């Protein structure tokens, strides 16, 4: 799944640029399957896209069976050939996960780039990470503990890892087996379990 952490999003739009490029061979946020929702005044940015629901309303309401689950990536995909352009799925999705593309005349949505999501690959801060659904909780637990390790270290010098940076995960997280990429230094990288095949770029080191 795409694990999104808005605290880390700088609002740079690279996810939208790369997403639209994969779909269109051209660049424009209006064609992106992921959108960065912006509250400029507060500096709050939330990248948001299809949540790939386990009980996908879009799939259930599609009258022609044009929406299916990809058995490999488990992404919910729209078959553009079958789609009538009736927009029922657009109306049914409670999250805006499916959009209508007037140029194609069909519904369009995130398909997790066939298992190598561009948004997660390019995200410079790790605000978007692609992680195996069943490992997300473990990764988050590790992050939480690595944040705590800072306090623990303060209380018991030398007891835990090599200390935490100000934004939470730091040396301790990196020192944990299998946790490479968790925390601000691991942007775009694997996340818990090191399972992302899309990891390409090094990230910001806060």
């Amino acid at each position, binding site marked *: 799944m795409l694990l999104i952490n808005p605290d880390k999003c*700088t609002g*740079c739009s*690279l996810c939208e*640029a790369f997403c639209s*490029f994969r779909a269109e061979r051209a660049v*424009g946020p*209006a064609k992106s399957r992921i959108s960065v929702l912006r509250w*400029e005044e507060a*500096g709050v940015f939330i990248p948001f896209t299809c949540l790939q629901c386990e009980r996908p309303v879009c799939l259930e309401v599609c009258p022609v069976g044009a929406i299916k689950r990809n058995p490999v990536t488990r992404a919910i995909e729209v078959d553009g050939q079958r789609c009538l352009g009736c927009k029922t799925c657009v109306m049914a999705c409670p999250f805006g996960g499916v959009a209508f593309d007037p140029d194609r005349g069909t519904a369009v949505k995130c398909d997790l780039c066939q298992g190598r999501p561009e948004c997660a690959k390019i995200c*410079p801060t790790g605000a978007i990470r692609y992680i195996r659904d069943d490992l997300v909780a473990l990764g988050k637990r590790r992050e939480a503990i690595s944040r705590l390790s800072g306090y623990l270290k303060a209380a018991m010098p030398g007891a835990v890892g090599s200390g935490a940076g100000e934004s939470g995960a730091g040396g301790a997280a990196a020192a944990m087996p299998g946790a490479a990429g968790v925390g601000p230094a691991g942007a775009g990288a694997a996340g818990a379990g090191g399972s992302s095949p899309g990891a390409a770029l090094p990230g910001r080191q806060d």
Partner: protein
Amino acid sequence: MKYKGYAGKYLRIDLTTGRVQPVELDAAMCREWLGGNGWGINILFSEVPVEADPLSPENKLILATGPINGTLMPNSGRLECIAKSPLTGIYGDSNVGGFFAPEMKFAGWDMFVIEGRAAHPVYIYIEDDRVEILDASDLWGRDTIETERAIQKAHGDEAVKVACIGPAGENLVRYAGIQVTPQRSLGRSGMGAVMGSKNLKAVAVRGHGVVPIAQPERFYDIAVKCHEGIRGNPIYPAVSRFGTPGIVALMDQIGRFPTKNFQLGHFDRVEAISAETLRRNHFVKDIACYACPIACDKIYAVREGEFAGLVMRSVEYETIGAVGASIDNDNLPSILKANELADRLGLDAISAGRCLSFAYELWEKGIITAEDTGGLELEWGEWRPALKLLEMIAYRQGFGDILAEGVRRAAERIGRGSDYYAMHVKGQEIAAQDGRAQQSMGLAHVTSNRGADHLKAFPTIDETGYPDEARRRYGEAYLPEMADPQANKHKGFLIKDGEDFGAVVDSSGNCKSGGTFVLAQIYWDDMAEAISAATGMELAAEDLRRIGERIYNLQRVYNVLHGISRKDDTLPKRLLTEPSPSKAAKGNVCRLEPMLEDYYRLRGWDPETGYPTREKLMELGLEEACRRLEAEGKLR
């Protein structure tokens, strides 16, 4: 349009008649001049005559993008603004990040060329193909942040990108800037005053289209390569973490941090205004411009004291210098307040800060008194009068009316030997650099076509000595001098190369604070590959060098037609004759002459007059420039 990468058309808007004319982009315009300031100088050169007053309807305000704006390339969000400058009277431009330029491209426009003068205050709203000139009576008088929000609200869309002026632009302050979503500044050269002179409060744009790419796979590869390069660059973490304020302490170390209006090159309380202090006390969040992995901008908050509750952004090295060390001010919250005030009022913080330090020094020297200042006591370190003066400048009240003219004109008005303290080149105030501490920076200031400016050539390689970058870019032969801030050798070459490369970066839509100059990661070959793949024009690095040189020469010719010659290519006396008292720069003046001679030779310009020669201009295919110089008797 046969080339991709571009939107393919631009807009001409005449505010006098209200006529709006879409124009198809000409392929030759792209191949020969790329975009951005390449297009800008062409339009000024052929359409804005020498005798045209910069604040008259005849001047043209140009907002231009380039072929990689709004694409996958890192830092591809920069907008270029060009007009004849009311501050210098010569070629003027300014460049800004944010999201405006990509939005223009998504809306289907490469450039807006705005001329004439509206009968009453208006703003221009562009949504894809729809262009409207709308009444701005209600917006006139409001600050830039209020204006941006009011326009977004009026159109019911927070994603509308706005470029607007504040009170300073309305009141024709000669260094008024244009604020661009989200609170970034087209600061330099007085572009905001040109906008104000046209009764134009804002340009707002919203687009739903895409930027087409000629060779998608090839373009993707070069874009990802540039992202990888930036994110693997050794200084990426520091630039990301601190933004430009990160160099405050460094510049202080090398004596290049102008303090008390260039009396000193270091600030004895630098700790109080350093990046570390800024981050520790005020940091809230990293924020980025379009497609930027660096996110050098931050949101800052003041949590206690007089300015508690202030939340703001866009604090730069320059503003910390301009309203901090320059007036001997170590109160960081007051610097943030002044920074925010300048942005709201729509003032170039660099020029405004230099006007403040000029006034403070005149006060110290007894050249001006409370009688001149309307009772303000401009004692070094006192920031309250600085905040007051910023408002007085923007509204042209009292002494502010004199400072609103910039230091050159203000010194003419004040007289009494004040011109010695007016730190400018060709009328543009000098930013927080000192050619005595970094010799190449002195040269950069005098050869910049928009008057004093560190960003035209942007010599970063020898700032604090980056031998690895110097080796990577120029090869072993130029070391060790190339990386030595006090060496004069090779600096003519460094500056010429920087100016030509900078002209291409500013014409393509890329960022000089990103991969190209600050990180010295992206250079000619990468730019050529990116532009070629995006557009389908096959341009090699050599072709881009030639475009850069053509742009720089045409800007120079335009300036020569406006009376500029070698005599103007100089620094304030202080930097040439008063040895720096500070740290690594101690004992040095800026040794301009040998560098300048080297520079003219490399440029192929006449060393006596500083005019581009017939031979050089013909070589660059600038026949019309030749003809016009010849008509003025300025061709050799």
